[in-house]
C-alpha cells in the first residue's frame, strides 16, 4: 500500500480497462462464438407490407443438402408465444405478435419461415427456395389517414388502427382552458418527428444452446437487457426462468434497438431445444433495417399560451404516434415519456398531452436513443424559438425568464415531476461564454451583410434519466449489484447494468477502488451473464451509473461495516476506534488491509461471534426519484444558398450530469449523442413508400453521419449534484442527442429567418432547404414570418449574468 494518499480514481479521465481486447480483435461478440455442432438459421421475410399468405412451399428448401429443417408458423408459434410488451398502457389493443406470420404478413420484413441448416451459406440459399404466395391486402402507411373512417386496417381483427389513446395533464383541464383563454396569444405549430433507424454497427444476433440433461437453456444474445430477456423469455418458450442463462458477450452498440425481446431469440431457443443442437442466427443489415425497431415517428400539433411579456402559461399537444404494426417491449411507453417532459425546463402552469398510437404496416417503433425525450426537447425548444420570434424577444432572454432559478429546486413541473436539482442559468451563461457569444453574433451580422445564410441556435434542455423509481416503471426500476472481496484481497464487482459500449468495467472499477482503497488493477467488474450477475435491469435510459453504480456503493458500505467488526476483533479494539483509509483499518498504530482481512473472513477460524464468514454483499438500489440532467447547447451553421447544404461551423455543449466519474467517458457519450442529432437534423430518415415498401433498407440508402460531418466541439460542464443518490450523479448517455437536435435545428431556422421561413420539419436536407429558399416551400401548416420581422436581430448581446459560480471542467 502506498504511504501517501492516492488521488481518487473517481473524477479522473482514465482510459478503459475493457479496451485492449477490443483493440486487438480478441474480444468476443455473439457472431464470434463457435460451438460445436452449431446449426444456422436464416429467415424468409415478407416483401409485402400487407398480404395474405395463400401458400408456403418448403419442399425444395427441405430437400436441399445441408438443410436440417424449415419451419413455418404452424410448426412453432404454439411453442414460442407472444412477443412481450411491458409498457403499462391500459386499453392497448395488441395484435399478439408471434414468432412467424400466421396466414398474414403486416410489414416488410415480417418473418414467414425459418430455415435451419448446417452452415450459414446453405441456410441463406435454402431460404431463397422457400416459395411463398402472397395475396396483397390494402396497406396502411399514413397514420393520420389511418385514423379516419373508412381507412384500410393494419389488423382487420382489431377493427381500428388506433392502438391506444393516452392523455396526461396537469390535473385541472378547466384551469388549462382558462390559461389559454386569458393568454395574450396562442401560438401553434405542427411538427413531424421523422422515423429513424438506430443502426448499431453490430447487427443483432443470438446463439441458443439447450442442455438436455440439465434441461437448461443458454442464450448468448446481442442485447442491452439480458436480465429482462431472462425474465420475459419463459413467457414465450416455457423454459422456467431459473433454467435460463442469458449471456451478452461484447455488444456492438444498441441505442435502444437492443432493448427488446425479439422473435429470433425465442425461435432460436425453441429450435435449439427441438433440434438438440446449438442454433445461431446473425442478423443481416437488411433485416436490421426492416425488422429491428425504429425510433421517433410522432406528428404533433402544439399550442402554447403566452403573455405578451413572454411569460409562458400553458402548452397543449395532440400527438399521433406511428408505432408501426405491433408493440415491441416499450413501444407505447415512448410517447408517454414525451408527455412527461413536455414542459422542458420551463415554468409552464399547465399542460395537456393527448397521444393516439396508430398501427401502420411498418416495423414497430420503440426506444431509440433518448426515447420520447428528444421529441419533447425538440418540440419545446423549437416552440421556444417560434414563440420568442413571434413576440420579437431575444430567445435567450425568453428562455431565462421562463426557467426556474437554482433556488427553485426541487422544481415541481406542470407534468407532475419533481426536478431534483439544477442551475439552468449557469449552464446557459457558461455556454454563451464558451461560444464567445458576442463575437458569434458579430460573425453572423457580417456573414448576413455578405449575403450569406448564417444562423445561430440555442437550446436549453433538461432530460429525465436514471429510469427509474419502480413505482413509475413497468417492471421494476431498481438496479442490483454485488461486491465480493476475494480470498486474495482483490475485489470482484458484479453489476446488473450490462454495458454495450459505455465502459462500466472502468467506471464501476473507479467507484469501487476508491471506496475500497484498492488499486484499480485489483478490481474486476463482471456483467452480462445471468449466471454471474444474477439480477439486474440492465442499461438504457441513462441509468447504469446512477443506479448500477449506486448499488455497488451500497454493497461496499455493507462490506465495510462488516469488515470493521472483523478488523476490530483481530486488532482487539472497538469498531468505533478504527479508521479506514487507503484500504486499511487502523487503530493504535496497528492496521490490517484487505490482504489480511479477506483470508481471515474466509478461513473463519478467528472471527467475532455471530460473524458470517466471507466478504460479499449484494444490494438492490431503489431510487426515490429520477434524475434530471440538463444543459445548454449552442450551434452556428452556414448554409450554401445555392445547394441548401448546411455546415456546422461551431458547436458548444455545456452539460450538467452531476459529478463525473470519468470525464473521458462523459465526453465520449456527449460527442456520440450529438452525432446522432447531426444525423437526425440534417439527413437521417426512415422511408416507407405508399405501398409500405421500405426504401431505406440498406446503408446505401440510409445516410449515417461520417467523420467529416462532425464539427470541432467545445465541451464544457457544470456540476450540480443530484440529491437522489449518494454520489450525486445524473447520467449522460442520452444528453447529447436530447440537447443537440433542437440546437442545430434552431440554428438552421435562424439562418433561414431573414427569408421568412418559420419552420421546417426534420431532416433539414439540402433539397428541403433549397426548396424553402427558392420555391418558398414550408412544411404543412407553416406560416411565413411577416416581412417586417425578418430583419429583426432576434438575439442580443445583453448580459445574461453568470448564474451560479462556475464549476466543472472545460
Amino acid at each position, binding site marked *: 500500500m502506498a504511504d501517501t494518499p492516492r488521488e481518487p480514481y473517481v473524477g479522473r479521465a482514465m482510459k478503459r480497462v475493457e479496451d485492449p481486447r477490443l483493440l*486487438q480483435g*480478441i474480444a468476443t461478440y455473439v457472431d464470434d462464438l463457435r460451438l460445436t455442432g452449431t446449426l444456422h438459421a436464416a429467415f424468409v421475410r415478407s416483401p409485402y407490407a400487407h398480404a395474405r399468405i395463400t401458400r408456403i412451399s418448403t419442399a425444395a428448401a427441405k430437400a436441399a443438402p445441408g438443410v436440417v429443417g424449415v419451419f413455418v408458423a404452424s410448426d412453432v408459434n404454439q411453442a414460442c408465444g407472444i412477443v412481450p410488451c411491458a409498457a403499462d398502457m391500459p386499453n392497448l389493443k395488441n395484435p399478439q405478435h408471434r414468432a412467424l406470420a400466421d396466414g398474414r404478413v403486416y410489414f416488410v420484413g415480417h418473418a414467414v419461415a425459418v430455415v435451419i441448416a448446417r452452415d450459414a451459406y446453405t441456410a441463406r440459399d435454402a431460404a431463397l427456395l422457400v416459395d411463398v404466395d402472397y395475396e396483397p391486402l390494402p396497406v396502411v402507411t399514413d397514420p393520420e389517414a389511418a385514423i379516419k373512417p373508412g381507412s384500410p386496417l393494419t389488423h382487420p381483427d382489431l377493427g381500428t388502427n388506433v392502438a391506444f389513446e393516452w392523455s396526461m395533464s396537469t390535473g385541472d383541464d378547466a384551469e388549462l382552458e382558462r390559461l389559454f383563454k386569458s393568454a395574450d396569444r396562442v401560438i401553434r405549430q405542427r411538427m413531424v418527428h421523422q422515423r429513424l433507424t438506430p443502426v448499431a454497427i453490430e447487427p443483432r444476433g443470438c446463439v441458443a444452446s439447450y442442455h438436455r440433461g440439465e434441461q437448461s437453456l443458454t442464450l448468448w444474445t446481442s442485447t442491452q437487457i439480458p436480465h429482462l430477456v431472462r425474465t420475459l423469455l419463459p413467457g414465450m418458450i416455457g423454459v422456467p426462468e431459473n433454467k435460463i442463462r442469458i449471456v451478452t458477450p461484447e455488444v456492438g452498440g444498441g441505442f435502444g434497438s437492443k432493448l427488446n425481446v425479439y422473435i429470433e431469440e425465442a425461435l432460436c431457443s425453441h429450435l435449439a431445444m427441438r433440434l438438440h443442437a446449438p442454433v445461431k442466427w446473425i442478423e443481416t443489415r437488411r433485416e436490421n433495417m426492416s425488422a429491428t425497431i425504429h425510433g421517433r415517428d410522432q406528428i404533433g400539433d402544439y399550442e402554447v399560451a403566452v403573455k405578451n411579456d413572454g411569460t409562458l402559461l400553458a402548452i397543449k399537444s395532440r400527438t399521433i404516434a406511428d408505432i408501426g404494426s405491433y408493440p415491441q417491449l416499450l413501444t407505447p411507453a415512448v410517447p408517454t415519456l414525451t408527455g412527461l417532459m413536455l414542459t422542458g425546463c420551463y415554468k409552464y402552469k399547465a399542460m395537456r398531452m393527448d397521444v393516439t398510437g396508430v398501427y401502420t404496416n411498418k416495423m414497430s417503433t420503440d426506444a431509440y436513443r433518448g426515447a420520447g425525450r428528444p421529441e419533447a426537447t425538440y418540440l419545446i425548444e423549437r416552440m421556444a424559438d417560434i414563440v420568442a420570434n413571434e413576440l420579437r424577444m431575444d430567445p435567450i432572454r425568453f428562455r431565462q425568464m421562463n426557467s426556474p432559478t437554482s433556488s427553485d429546486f426541487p422544481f415541481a413541473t406542470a407534468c407532475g415531476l419533481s426536478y431534483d436539482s439544477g442551475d439552468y442559468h449557469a449552464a446557459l451563461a457558461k455556454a454563451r461564454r464558451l461560444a464567445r457569444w458576442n463575437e458569434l453574433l458579430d460573425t453572423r451580422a457580417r456573414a448576413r451583410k455578405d449575403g450569406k445564410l448564417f444562423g445561430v441556435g440555442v437550446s436549453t434542455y433538461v432530460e429525465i434519466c436514471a429510469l427509474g423509481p419502480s413505482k413509475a416503471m413497468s417492471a421494476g426500476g431498481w438496479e442490483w449489484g454485488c461486491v465480493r472481496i476475494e480470498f486474495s484481497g482483490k475485489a470482484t464487482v458484479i453489476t446488473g447494468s450490462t454495458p454495450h459500449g459505455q465502459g462500466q468495467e472502468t467506471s464501476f472499477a473507479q467507484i469501487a477502488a476508491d471506496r475500497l482503497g484498492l488499486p484499480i488493477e485489483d478490481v474486476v467488474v463482471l456483467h452480462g451473464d445471468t449466471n454471474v450477475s444474477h439480477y439486474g435491469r440492465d442499461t438504457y435510459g441513462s441509468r447504469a451509473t446512477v443506479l448500477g453504480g449506486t448499488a455497488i456503493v451500497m454493497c461496499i458500505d455493507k462490506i465495510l461495516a462488516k469488515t470493521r467488526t472483523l478488523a476490530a476483533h483481530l486488532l482487539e479494539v472497538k469498531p468505533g476506534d478504527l479508521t479506514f483509509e487507503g484500504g486499511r483499518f487502523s487503530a493504535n498504530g496497528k492496521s490490517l488491509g484487505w490482504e489480511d482481512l479477506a483470508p481471515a473472513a474466509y478461513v473463519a477460524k478467528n472471527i467475532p461471534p455471530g460473524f458470517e464468514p466471507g466478504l460479499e454483499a449484494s444490494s438492490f438500489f431503489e431510487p426515490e426519484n429520477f434524475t434530471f440532467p440538463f444543459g445548454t447547447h449552442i450551434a452556428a451553421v452556414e448554409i450554401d444558398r445555392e445547394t441548401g447544404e448546411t455546415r456546422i461551423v461551431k458547436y458548444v455543449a455545456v452539460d450538467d450530469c452531476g459529478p463525473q466519474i470519468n470525464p473521458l467517458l462523459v*465526453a465520449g457519450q456527449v460527442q456520440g449523442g450529438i452525432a446522432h442529432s447531426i444525423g437526425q437534423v440534417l439527413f437521417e430518415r426512415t422511408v416507407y413508400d405508399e405501398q409500405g415498401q421500405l426504401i431505406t433498407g440498406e446503408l446505401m440508402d440510409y445516410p449515417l453521419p461520417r467523420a467529416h460531418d462532425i464539427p470541432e466541439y467545445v465541451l464544457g460542464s457544470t456540476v450540480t449534484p443530484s440529491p437522489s443518490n449518494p454520489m450525486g450523479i445524473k447520467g449522460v448517455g442520452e444528453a447529447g442527442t436530447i440537447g443537440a437536435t433542437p440546437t442545430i435545428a434552431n440554428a438552421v431556422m435562424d439562418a433561414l429567418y431573414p427569408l421568412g421561413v418559420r419552420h421546417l420539419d426534420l431532416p433539414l436536407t439540402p433539397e428541403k432547404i433549397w426548396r424553402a429558399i427558392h420555391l418558398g416551400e414550408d412544411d404543412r401548416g407553416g406560416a411565413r414570418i411577416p416581412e417586417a420581422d425578418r430583419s429583426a436581430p432576434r438575439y442580443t448581446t445583453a448580459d445574461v449574468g453568470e448564474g451560479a459560480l462556475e464549476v466543472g471542467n472545460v
Partner: protein
Amino acid sequence: MNVSITVNDQLLTHDVEPRLLLVHFLRDYCGLTGTHVGCETSICGACTVQIGGKAVKSCTLFAVQADGESVLTVEGLAGEGTLHPMQQAFWDAHGLQCGYCTPGMMMTAVQLLADTPRPTREQIAHGLKGNLCRCTGYTKIIDAVERAAGAK
C-alpha cells in the same frame, strides 16, 4: 478450389467455395474473428483489412480474389501482448466505445498514416469516410489518429 493466402505472416491454404467472402475466410477458416461484418454492402468498413498494405473491405471480396496475396488483419497489427501505435492511440484517446467498428477503423487509419504521415484533422476525417461509427461521434477517433501520427 484451393486458396493460399498469407494472413498475418502465416501462409494458410484452404479448399473453399469460390463464393466464400474474404471476411468469412478470415473468420471461419482462419479463426480470426477480429474482423467484423457490419453492413454487407461496402459502406460501413467494419470488415476492413489490408491486402498488400492497402485497406480493403473484406465483405466485398471473394477469398479467391485474395489468393496468393498477403492479408493483414487487426490481430496481426502488433505482436502478441503488445499494441501497435494505432491501437495504443485509440486506447489513450478513448477512440472506441462498443469496439465493433474499431478494428476496421484502425486498419484504414494505418494506411491513412502510411500515405499521409502528418495529416490534418480534416484529412483524417475524410480519410475515414469509408468507416462508420455509431458510438463515438468520431471526434475521439480523429484525436486517436492524430495522436498516432504524433507518436511516429
